């Protein structure tokens, strides 16, 4: 893997990573990080049969609510090019580092990228990549991101770039948290509104049995950083991709329901 070995890093864990999760080194003004692309086959498998929801021609249906969680008008207008789907993997709650930023955006096709911090020093770069994507698109779609992903992104960025604390917020034009949409649309018919439940009942998709549970993620990442263990890291990467693709599909289903 010629494009992998980072300059100055001590090699072995990074090499091992490059073998199991081929990707490329991404250099940013805030340092470098590791970039992974979603497997096109996986995207086709999950989103292949979706209608052309994301075509800019989607007609302007009347919105179901004014300003509430179901007011998806702006989202509809900004699709496909102006919207960024995001999902984070972190070492815990507020105050803990973010180590994986997964984004999906729509061009001529669905594009998925993951930015991985291979150790604590690469967190600024993955955050930089997020802000770069957001600046370009402006509208954010997440699942439970209003209480988790967004504050996390803000706080971790302020952590590394304290003097930007007052200006970050302005890169965000609108944020759709599909948790609230899902609760309104499907909540009463489902046992709960967790992403996996929605994935199963709304998207009709059953995830592989060895999907890593959320609570095991911080430790698994720590083991990767301290001991170079990549096995669980692969599972985390897969988990994050699945979460994002489900997010995209849920967004489609919600727009369908509301049009």
């Amino acid at each position, binding site marked *: 893997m010629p494009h992998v070995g980072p300059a*100055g*890093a001590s090699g072995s864990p990074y090499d091992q990573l490059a073998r199991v999760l081929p990707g490329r080194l991404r250099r940013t003004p805030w340092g470098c990080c590791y970039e992974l692309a979603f497997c096109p086959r996986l995207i086709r498998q999950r989103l292949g049969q979706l209608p052309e929801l994301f075509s800019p021609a989607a007609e302007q249906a009347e919105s179901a609510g004014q300003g509430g969680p179901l007011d998806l008008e702006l989202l509809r207008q900004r699709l496909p090019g102006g919207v960024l789907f995001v999902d984070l993997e972190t*070492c*815990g*709650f*507020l*105050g*803990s580092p973010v180590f994986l930023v997964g984004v999906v955006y729509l061009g001529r096709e669905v594009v998925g990228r993951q930015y991985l911090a291979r*150790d*604590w*020093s690469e967190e600024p770069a993955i955050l930089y990549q997020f802000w770069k994507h957001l600046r370009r698109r402006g509208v954010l779609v997440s699942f439970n991101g209003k209480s988790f992903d967004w504050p996390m992104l*803000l*706080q*971790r*960025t*302020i*952590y*590394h770039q*304290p*003097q930007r*604390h*007052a200006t970050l917020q302005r890169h965000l034009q609108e944020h759709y948290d599909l948790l609230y949409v899902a609760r309104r649309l499907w909540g009463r018919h489902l046992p709960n509104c967790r992403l996996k439940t929605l994935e199963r009942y709304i998207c009709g998709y059953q995830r592989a049995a060895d999907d890593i549970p959320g609570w095991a993620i*911080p430790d698994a990442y*720590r083991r990767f*950083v*301290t001991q170079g263990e990549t096995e669980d890291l692969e599972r985390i990467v897969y988990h994050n991709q699945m979460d994002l693709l489900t997010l995209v599909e849920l967004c489609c289903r919600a727009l369908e329901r509301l049009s």
Partner: protein
Amino acid sequence: MDVQRFLDHLQHLPGYRGQLVHVEELPPREAEPGELRPPLPEPLRRMLAARGIRQLYVHQQQAVELLRRGRHVVITTGTASGKSLCYHLPVLEQLLQDGQATALYLFPTKALAQDQLKGLHRLLEGAAVGAASVQPGVYDGDTPRGQRRSIRQQSRLVLSNPDMLHAALLPYHPGWARFFAGLRFVVLDEAHSYRGIFGAHVAQVLRRLRRVCARYGSRPVFVATSATIANPQQLLEQLVGEPFEVVSRDGSPRGRKFFAFWNPPPAGRGRPWRRSAVDEAVALMIQGMEQGAQVLTFARTRQQAELVFRYVQEYFRRQGSPLAQQVQAYRGGYLPHQRRQIEADLFSGRLRGLAATNALELGIDVGGLDMVIILGYPGTIASCWQQAGRAGRAAGPPATGSFRSGVKPAAGAEAPRRPGSQPAVGPPAAGSFRSEVKPGVGAEAPSRPGSQPAAGAPRVSGGSAETDRYPYLFRQEALLPPEACTGGNESLVVLVAGNDPVDQFLMRHPEYFFGRSPEHAVADPHNPYILRKHLALAAQEAPLDEEAALFFGSHWQQHAAPLERQGLLLRRRGRFYYQGPAGPAQGVSLRHLSDETFTIVLLSPGGEVPPSAPAEAAAWEGLLGQQVPQEQVLATVDGFSAPELVYPEAIYLHQGRTYLVRHLDWQGKLAYVEPVQSDYYTQAIVEKAVLVQESQLERLAAPGHRAGWGTVQVRWKTTAFKKIKFHTRENIGWGSVSLPQQQLQTKALWLLPQGCAGSGGELAEALAGLCHLATKAAPLVTMSDTTDLGGTVDFQNFGRGAVILYDRYPGGLGYCERALAALEQLLRLCLQLLQECPCQSGCPGCVGLPSWRPGQASDPDLTTSGPLPDKEKTRRLLKRLLAGGWSPPQAAAPQGLTAQA
């Protein structure tokens, strides 16, 4: 109160035995105003006018002018001199001028923050500026979740404490970005309390604060207030790490105050010690309260405070006096709401007497008291003056300048007085409680209507023990009519001497106390043990790079390296990243040796002790705070004291009531107690050993005396306890205790005399005496608190007899190192204490009492076993030690040296 008359009264009591050895009169002082240039902005002038303040005192003027110029300032004027205005004014001036500016007020206790918030609100009420633009808020462990967010996002003046800054603000600084970026002022109120271990921690917390602020582009000005200490400037420079200016010229007026030294009479009949200081304090407190004074007694230990309260209340109960309901105890470990209630009651005057520990020493506003009794020298001159400052606050014309005097009445009015309770002037003349004292009758007298004896309240046994107890201060004939001494703005402070050498020394040399400047306070910012803990936390707040040297010194990398080896930090491209467990600050307590608190849980009588949870589960439940329903919690105790206070079968004293410890859950940090009516209390017996691990510095003297300093491990364990009968202090039984051993890695000083005549036994007697003297004298030399040092006689470590003194903190605090440097001074002071003591063959006033044990000196409640001290042998030993000249300290030869801070 009319102090002269009261003292005269005391001296005419038939049982008076010359206890009053000295009275110092502190004259009243006139106000000295100061004019601020340029004057305050109009809204602030109106704000002051609304509080009746037309002119500032000179110290307020000086402080404001320095702060306006961006200097860090420490203000050291007296209690009630209007110190808080010194910081309120420049802070408010800045917040009004700049809508983004913020300020952080830090108080050593939560109670002080609440107290000051009330004061601020009242101050702002009168201002056209209104609280709206400032939105002051207290952010501490008690702040409801709902308010935290708005304080974080909007408040421009946050009142908090160093613990909260350390564990809740700094680690989550991105959530406080607005606040830190705008931070212009940091206020350190009562900064003298940041000394010793707490000070060393706070010094690191403040360095972390400065570092975080620098990252947000702000550079706050620090303003501190301090009680009188010898080195306010040095202390603050140690704490903050930047230069400070001192404002000390007190421009506030003061009423006349008297400071009396009271030495309990000899116990008599071949008993070489003096009568109990507790008994004397109880008698004085009763006399004072009966004369209409509001009296505060400062005890040295929690148990003493409980005993004084219990005895005073018992006395008034027996008299059928309503004062029995107007006396209380106050100490650390009481739950916050109890403490707030007691403070408010003292302030409002409802409470006429309070027996407190130094938990009340800090500037909580309890109003001016008529009389303060200091039960035993509190170890430092500064602390003594601080406690004395509780007597007779601002007096004279309520002229101006004193923010406090302007505010206080409102506070008093706020606290609702209970129907039937007394106005602040004194106890009611009602009833016949002053009539003939008939032992036993009072006990049967119905308690006041409306008062409810709580469950488990001690019953007075009606025996003769209590009447025997105060035989000489309670004869009827000579007593003044009640409340004869009320009125006037004079106040009285009484220092009641204990048997300790230093207490007795002060009784012989009052001029030493009044002529000497208060002690130095030490906050060691280089303590490696503490520095390392905070370096890890600093790394969690932002990766450590070269800039860290600006805050943590140029050697910070030396301390970061071990953290890297532990796996807490990861080094990448010259920076250290934190990678330890989440929330590391939670595990670092700023205050206690052991970073743990035990909770004391109340069982109903005969109730079941819940099964002990497995360690892990208990830890989790402890984290989640779910294990113990709050209403069952009686009190708390720090992990260091727990094995000495709440071992199984201990009698735990709380509000004068007795509780039996049924079970101590060591893992779960829980002690289960149940109310019992006990006629005894318990004292732990602790076995202690010191193991010398590394010798680092050495001094020699002819003909072969050695003194050294280095690393030791102190191990101790509660092995048994004594049952002591109330009042008579008879030892009525024993019990054994099985608890895990505790250990402390610290620094120690050892002294190995050479060529002492006589057998090992004889040397042991001399060493025991020296140890007792040295643990008491060392604080005077090392500028530490008596509780900061421990001492023991040892024959194990060096193959010969030695006295070992050690710092009672992990890693040491530099006290013993200083004692080694000043060894001759220390020895001379020991000899002086010994020679000036008039006793024949030893007493607690010098080498210790034969029935006492050496090494217990710094822990009045504890005893250890050891050889019996001998005065003459100790004297000869000291002479010999002082005869040969001591070489300067140098590196100890054989062992490898570790880096010194």
